[in-house]
C-alpha cells in the first residue's frame, strides 16, 4: 500500500496525540497518587496533633500547680529567693571576682574532697540527710531509726505488710529493706 505524504503526516500527528494522551493519563494517575499520599500524611498529622494535645493535657494535669506545691512541701523544699540572692547588675557580678584592694592577698580557697571509699561502690554519692523543709534542720524519723536496727525489714513487714514497704516515703528505710543488708546506711542513688 502506498502511503502518501499527507497521510504519513496525519498518522504522525495521531501518534503524537496518542503519546500525549498516554502521558497525560500517566501524569494524572501520578497526581492522584501523590494527592492520596498527601491525604494520608494529613491524616497522620491530625492524628499526631491530637495525640500531642492529649499528652500535653495529661502532662499538665499531672504537673498541676497543686501537685507541684505538694511535692515541694514533701520532697524539694524550694523557697522563694531572698533579697541578698540578687545582684544589681553586671558591675556587682564583676566585683565578686575583684581583689578586695590593691596588693590584698588572694582569698584562701579550700577544696573539699569526698571521703575516700564512701560511695565508690555503686558510684552513688552518700545520700544527704533528710532536712525539714520548714526549718532546714536535719530530722530523724522514728521509722528511719527503727530501720537502722538489724531486724528492721522483718519487723516492718510484720507490722505493716509488704505493700507498705513499697509505699513508704522514707527512702533510707525502704532502700535498706530492698537491699536486705541491715546496718548499711547507704541508700539508693538519688
Amino acid at each position, binding site marked *: 500500500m502506498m502511503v502518501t505524504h499527507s497521510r504519513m503526516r496525519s498518522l504522525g500527528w495521531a501518534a503524537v496525540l496518542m503519546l500525549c494522551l498516554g502521558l497525560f493519563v500517566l501524569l494524572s494517575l501520578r497526581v492522584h497518587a501523590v494527592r*492520596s499520599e498527601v491525604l494520608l500524611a494529613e491524616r497522620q498529622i491530625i492524628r499526631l*496533633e491530637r495525640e500531642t*494535645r492529649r499528652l500535653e493535657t495529661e502532662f499538665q494535669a499531672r504537673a498541676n*500547680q497543686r501537685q507541684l506545691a505538694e511535692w515541694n512541701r514533701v520532697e524539694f523544699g524550694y523557697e522563694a*529567693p531572698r533579697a541578698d540572692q*540578687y545582684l544589681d547588675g553586671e558591675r556587682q557580678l564583676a566585683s565578686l571576682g575583684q581583689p578586695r584592694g590593691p596588693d590584698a592577698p588572694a582569698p584562701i580557697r579550700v577544696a573539699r574532697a569526698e571521703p575516700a571509699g564512701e560511695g565508690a561502690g555503686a558510684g552513688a554519692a552518700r545520700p544527704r540527710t533528710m532536712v525539714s523543709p520548714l526549718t532546714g534542720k536535719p530530722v530523724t524519723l522514728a521509722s528511719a531509726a527503727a530501720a537502722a536496727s538489724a531486724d528492721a525489714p522483718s519487723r516492718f513487714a510484720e507490722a505493716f505488710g509488704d505493700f507498705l514497704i513499697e509505699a513508704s516515703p522514707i527512702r533510707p528505710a525502704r532502700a535498706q529493706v530492698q537491699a536486705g543488708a541491715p546496718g548499711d546506711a547507704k541508700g539508693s542513688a538519688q
Partner: protein
Amino acid sequence: MNVQAPGLGRGFGSGIGEAGLQRQLPLGFEPAKRGAGPAPKALPASPQGPQPAQPTGRVQLVSLRQELLLTARVRLLVIALLFAALAGVALARLGWLGLAGESPARTSLDAALLPDRGEITDRNGVPLARAFDAYALWFNPRAMDDGGSPLIRTPQEVAAGLKAIFPEMNEAATARMLASGKPSYLRRRILPEEANAVFDLGEIALETPREQDRHYPQGKLAAHVLGYVVEEEDGTLGGRVGMEQVLDDRLADTASRADPAALSIDLRVQGALEDEMRSGMLATDALGAAGVVLDVDTGEVVALASLPDFDPNRIAREDVPNMLNRVTNQVSELGSTFKPLTVAAAIDAGVIRDLSRDWDATPVEIGRRRLSDYSDKGDTLNIPQALAYSSNTVTMRVADKLGPERLKRVLMDLHMHERPTIELPARALPFWPKGEWSRIRTLTVGYGHGIAVTPLHLATAYAAMVNGGVWRPATLHKLDAGNVPRGKRVFKASTSARMRQLLRMIALYGTGRSADAEGYRVGGKTGSAEKNSGGRYSKTKLISTFAAAFPMDRPRYVVVVVLDEPRGTIASSYQRTAAWNAAPIVGRLVPRIGPMLGVRPDDNRDVDISDLRYLMEKAR
C-alpha cells in the same frame, strides 16, 4: 481484520473439515495437501474446477465447509470482541478510579484540628481549659443488624469481660443492661487504653464513640474564674458560672475558637495564692477564704481565689454551695480596712493637713452608744498612730469632720455603691446605705461598718489609693498596653503618695507587721469586723481581712485576703483578729509571687517615710 480472517479461518476450517473430507471423498479425488499452504488455492478453485459434472454430494460438502468456516469466524469474533470489551471496561474503570477517584471524604487540616470549643489560657498561654477528645462506652444492639442476638457471647460473659477492664463496674447490672437490648451508655468516659481493651473483646455492639469533652488540667485551680461546662439539650457545650459563661459565644464561634482566649490570670500566682490561703484557712479553722491579686496600673486580676472550691472536671451536687465566689459575690463589712480610705478622703479634702496633729482618742458617744478602741493606746493619737493601731475613735472623728457628703462622694467614685466591675456573671450588690447619711452612719462607715462590699471592691479601691489616685475597673481579660482603660481620678497624686507612706508604716509599726515580707516593701491594713447575721453582730464570729499593696515605693500589685470566721488556734496564737491570721498569709504569699511578677526583693529600697517616722517612734 478482514484481511486476516481467511487466514484464521483457514486453519480452523481445515482442522474441522478435513477428517470428514478424507472419510467421504471417493477414490480418484485428491485431497488438498495439508499444511503446505495450497489449501486456500484449492478451495476457491474447487467450485470453478474443470470438471463440469460434479456429483451433488461434493457441492454440499463445499457449502458445509464454508458454513462451518463462517460460524467459526463469527464465534471467534464474538469472543475477541468480548475480551476487548472486558479489557475496555477494565481500562475505563481503572482510568475513572485514577482520575475521578472516589477519594475519601476530605477534611481540611484546619477544620479537623479546630476544637469544638475554644481553649482558655492564662496570661502566659498555659491552658486552663481545653477541648479534649474523650471516649465513651456505648452499647448499640443494632450494630450487627442481622436480626439475631446483638452479642456474640452471652451478656454475662461480656459483662465479666468488661468487669476485668473496669474493676469498679457492677457486673450484674451491666449484664442486665446488655440483655435488655436497649442502646445505652455503659460508661460515659473511658481512657484510650480502656477503649483498646474493649475493642479486643471483639463485640461489635460495644462501641467506643469519640466525644468532645472539656478538661481543666489544673483541676480545682481557678475554678471560680473558669466555671464549668454542661451539655445543653442540643448536644453542644454551654458554659456556667465563670468565664466559660462570659466567653460562651466566643468559644463556640467557628471563626474565633481556633485562637485561645487569654485571661489576665497568672497560673503560678493563682497556685501560690490558693496554696497559702488554703493553709491559712486550715490553720485557723475558718469557714472560707477569699483572695485577689490585682495589677494596680491596669486593673487586671492576676489571681482570684475563693475557698472552699470545686472541681470543674467533675461537678457534684455537694459542690453547688462551693460555687459561691466569695471575691465577687459575697458582701460583708470589711471593717478597719476602710480606715485608710477615710483618711485618704480626708487628706484629699484638706480635712487632714497636719499628720502630726493629735486627735482625741477617747471613746465616742453618740446618743446612748459608746464606741471605743479595740485596744487603748492613750488619749490622743496622731494619724499614723491611729492607722497603725487601728483606732476606731480617731477614724470616727476624722469621718465626722469630713462629713457625710464628701465621704459618700469618694466611696461612690470608688464604685462601692454598685456591683463590682468585672466580667464574671456572679456579682453581688453591695449593702449601700440609702438616702441621707446620719451622723452615726457616717461615723460607722468611716471605719468600715454599716457598709458591706465585696473583697474585689476593696481591691480596686486600694489600687486607686496607691497607684497615684486613678480608679480603673477590674478585668479578667488580658489587656495589651494600648487597651488599658484611662480610668477616673479619685485621689490627688499627692494624697496617693502620702497613703503609700502611711500604709507602709502600718506594716512596719502597726497591726500589719506579720505581712512585712523582707525586701518587698509591703504596706497594708488589717480589718477585723464582727460578722453581722440578721442585723445582730456576733461577738465570736469575725471576718478578718488584710488589704495590702507592694512594693510601696512604686506599687505594682494589690493583694486582698479575707478569712470567714477564723478561730483562735495554736497557729494564730489563739487570736482571731486579722493581724494573726490574714496578715501572715499575705506575708507568706508576697515572697512567693513577687519574683514571678517581676518584683525584685531589695533591702536597700523603700518608700521614704523619714518625714513621718518620728511620729510613730516618739510614742515608743
